[in-house]
């Protein structure tokens, strides 16, 4: 809402500079975003919150100034003389939708002269960014800016059958509005019609055919109240918004309608001449009911945390034009003025008092009770992962949850169902909730490569969205992209699991997802028969120049399985015995089957089995490989004898031979 400094001064007395005025308005909730000197005046751009339509007129802002600084208000008088002819001679008005149009007033002025409006009106309109059109249109705009009440002038002679009907649009009807837009109208839209067709979309914009032009002689001045939700819905449906719809949507003052009409008629008479038909048409359903509220002083103190004196409270409410009915004791009964539709509860009054009293005059208390707070498991796991990965040189990234529908972005490792689409996307590029974080990490790598960083190690912790019943399942994932080989990233993941207190009992099995991974170089990771995640070498099709690996892990499962309880284990007093062995097995034999076989022998004193090498070469027969590993034997209470280790080792070798056909490789 733009106003000018001098224009405001017409309605309220104050002695503040434009900057002081701006500061004061800001402190009561009318933020002045900008002050611009314009000719001999200043234009103030005020941000009016959606609950305060009363401040969408300069007189409304004047009321706030009066309350804030105490100056007196003086709104313009509107005396005018009418001709003898009754308005009913010229127009017949019917309101078919009284709920959507609670009040409709009309006045007729005849024999006017349409021309430019006076200099002072033009200047003020220009100051606040409105383009002067002609005296009639400018006056309706001027009065709207002054009072916050929109008005519309019709060319009376262009209304067929001398009729105005406020009704719903009929199917097939359409209208060309003043700004030139043609719109089809639908049955749930309220229109102002003449005897034949809609001549305005109620509260939003008048029609082109009946607008005031240079040849207009007689006008009908509409000033009405429309139901806010109806205006809002229609405005959105038609894609037409105006200064008028902006105000009606937020709610106008039901008692301000006729005053604005009279003010406009007076200005028309003064600056366009003509004669005013006698009387006005004012069709109204019921009276505006004045709201009565009781404010309890005790409640005010409780909510604000400060004891404001009763007479201070009453003074503030009076200045805001609340009508005090009763101010005995600790209760204040009052009536709410018609222009304050936003005030209907005790809490609304408390806010009014606090606003004018000044938020900055309310003390800053530090008396809330002491309460301990500990990190929850989710936070502990997240923190541990971030600390671990950044310590290893990984950068955390954050990428968009809404992605495109390309094949890469459609990757879903966790479910067969497709991703969830946004019903009203802004662009194709952001139209679906992602089902994997990896495509975004791949794009992040591409971005960095394109900007000169060839190698990246990145991770993200974020949700993916899997189709569910009512709401989707939001699965929090940890996804990693690293320019390393498979075993390096696998090792990082394994260390991470150990760091979270999760033993390495996962099953790794071959997995295919050609959009992400190299064929036969990826694995799915199962833990307790649940998918923990996926890890593999990035597909060459992705076009990276470095060997990259990708992993996506279910963070919720990590949190569930993580265990930070620790118990001290005695450090072994007796030295371990190590044995390095190399066995020759068929290519198909996996390390995990060897390890499992060794563990299942339950060989005496075997503490650890550590893989260290796989070798294929001249000395090894085709179709076979040599696997070297290290066995660690240890007894808690003594040093082992080599015969004991020998026999355990022999049992292991025998079992490996029997189960997997393994042969000990001779040195």
């Amino acid at each position, binding site marked *: 809402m733009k106003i000018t400094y001098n224009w405001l001064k017409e309605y309220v007395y104050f002695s503040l500079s434009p900057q002081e005025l701006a500061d004061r308005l800001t402190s009561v909730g009318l933020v002045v975003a900008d002050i611009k000197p314009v000719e001999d005046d200043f234009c103030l751009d005020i941000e009016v919150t959606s609950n305060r339509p009363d401040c969408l007129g300069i007189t409304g802002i004047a009321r706030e100034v009066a309350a804030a600084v105490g100056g007196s208000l003086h709104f313009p008088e509107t005396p005018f003389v009418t001709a003898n002819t009754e308005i009913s001679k010229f127009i017949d008005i019917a309101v078919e939708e009284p709920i959507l149009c609670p009040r409709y007033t009309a006045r007729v002025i005849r024999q006017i002269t349409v021309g430019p409006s006076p200099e002072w009106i033009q200047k003020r309109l220009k100051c606040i960014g409105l383009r002067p059109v002609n005296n009639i249109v400018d006056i309706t705009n001027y009065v709207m800016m002054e009072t916050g009440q929109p008005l519309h002038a019709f060319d009376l002679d262009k209304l067929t059958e001398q009729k105005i009907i406020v009704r719903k649009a009929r199917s097939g009807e359409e209208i060309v509005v003043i700004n030139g837009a043609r719109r089809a109208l639908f049955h749930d839209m309220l229109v102002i019609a003449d005897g034949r067709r809609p001549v305005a979309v109620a509260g939003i914009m008048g029609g082109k055919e009946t607008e005031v032009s240079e040849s207009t002689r007689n006008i009908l001045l509409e000033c009405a109240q429309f139901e806010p939700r109806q205006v809002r819905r229609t405005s959105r449906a038609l894609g037409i918004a105006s200064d008028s719809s902006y105000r009606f949507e937020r709610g106008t003052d039901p008692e301000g309608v006729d005053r604005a009409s009279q003010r406009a008629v007076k200005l028309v008479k003064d600056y366009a001449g003509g004669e005013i038909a006698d009387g006005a048409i004012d069709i109204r359903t019921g009276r505006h009911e004045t709201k009565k509220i009781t404010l309890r002083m005790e409640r005010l103190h409780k*909510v604000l*945390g400060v004891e404001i004196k009763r007479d201070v409270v009453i003074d503030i409410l009076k200045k805001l034009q609340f009508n005090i009915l009763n101010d005995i004791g600790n209760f204040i009964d009052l009536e709410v003025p018609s222009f304050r539709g936003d005030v209907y509860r005790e*809490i609304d009054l408390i806010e009014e008092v606090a606003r004018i009293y000044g938020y900055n005059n309310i003390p800053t208390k530090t008396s809330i009770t002491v309460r301990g707070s500990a990190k929850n498991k989710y936070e502990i796991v997240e923190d541990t992962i971030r600390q671990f990965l950044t310590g290893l040189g990984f950068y955390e990234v954050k990428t968009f949850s809404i992605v495109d529908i390309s094949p890469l972005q459609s990757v879903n490792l966790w479910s067969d169902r497709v991703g969830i689409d946004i019903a009203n996307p802004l662009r194709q590029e952001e139209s679906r909730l992602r089902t994997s974080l990896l495509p975004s990490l791949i794009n992040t790598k591409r971005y960095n490569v394109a900007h000169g960083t060839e190698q990246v190690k990145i991770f993200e912790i974020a949700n993916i969205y899997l189709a569910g019943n009512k709401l989707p399942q939001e699965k929090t994932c940890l996804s990693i992209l690293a320019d390393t080989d498979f075993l390096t990233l696998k090792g990082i993941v394994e260390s991470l699991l150990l760091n979270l207190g999760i033993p390495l009992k996962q099953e790794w099995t071959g997995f295919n997802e050609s959009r992400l991974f190299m064929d036969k170089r990826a694995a799915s990771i199962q833990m307790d028969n649940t998918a923990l995640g996926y890890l593999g070498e990035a597909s060459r099709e992705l076009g990276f120049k470095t060997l990259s690996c990708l992993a996506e892990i279910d963070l919720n499962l990590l949190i569930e399985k993580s265990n930070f309880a620790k118990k001290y284990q005695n450090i072994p007093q007796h030295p371990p015995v190590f044995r390095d062995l190399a066995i020759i097995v068929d290519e198909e034999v996996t390390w995990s089957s060897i390890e499992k076989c060794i563990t299942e022998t339950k060989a005496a004193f075997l503490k650890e089995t550590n893989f260290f090498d796989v070798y294929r070469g001249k000395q090894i027969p085709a179709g076979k490989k040599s696997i070297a590993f290290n066995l660690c034997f240890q007894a808690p209470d003594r040093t082992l004898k080599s015969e004991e280790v020998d026999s355990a080792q022999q049992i292991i070798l025998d079992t490996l031979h029997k189960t997997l056909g393994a042969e000990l490789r001779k040195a």
Partner: protein
Amino acid sequence: MLDTLEEIKRNLQEETKGISTLKGAEQLKIKYLGRNGGVNDLMKLIPTLPVEKRAAFGQQINALKIEITDIIEGLIKKFSSEAIPKVTSEIFDVTLPGKRPSLGKRHPLTQTIDDIKEAFARLGFDVAYGPEVELEYYNFEALNIPSDHPSRTDFDTFYIKDDILLRSQTSTVQIRIMEKQKPPIRIIAPGRVYRPDTVDARHSFMFHQVEGLLVDEGVSFADLKGVLNQFIKTYFGQNIQMRFRPSFFPFTEPSAEVDISCSLCGGKGCNVCSYSGWVEILGAGMVDPNVLKAVHYDGEKYTGFAFGMGVERITMLKYGICDIRLFYENDIRFLSQF
């Protein structure tokens, strides 16, 4: 007997070929010269021999021991000297750059969220989370924003279906927590939110918020000011001033926008604070009675306050970042600065 001695020597010579590390050499030493090593095992044989042969065999073992010791110690020396380079006569340049390990970084937005969580944890606030894809009820109705309310214009939203949307604010978490718990409540809820804004230097269709909520008996606006003042001093510094301005949010009443004195110009006015000396950092207010009613709290008994802040905005202010898109491009040259 001599065969055994010869065999041990041959075995050793064979094994040394495979040794390539200090650790390996040391293990070899234990194997041959340790208490249960091969040489000691031979020593144990001496008492079993006829008396006249004992001396000669003992001498042979000792000779073998010296030989083995020489070989193994030689190895140990060799690998030790590789681990610790020889001191040479060249001038050692202490000014050469250190070999820096490469460290990664938490995303700057994570750092801000962590700092905010830390500051509020000291005031007894727990961390809570809620879904990003939400029922319209939690994003609007329960927060006192009925459909067709003019303030809905301020909350443009991505929809999935009629009554399912992407939350446009983290205030949704307030309702979910209050539905589950009775007062007292003290939480902060960080997370992603979504609004259909065209991306430019100042707007993003996805950004992060941190929501705070405290509900208890006897909580007042003065307490809200106290808590936020504590937070601002902890997070932005002791010299930063705070200012409350009346504003409007459907879910709080009275509502306020909170400004802090511009840290860049110290309140004198610069382009960051639009020459006002103040920058807006959060919205706050007393929980609206209609919100308490929606979660079946007794609004006469309990009062509370809520606040919300934009993580990107605070991070941009803190580091002087002018373009919000940098957070989502994830250029390592950007990420490595924080």
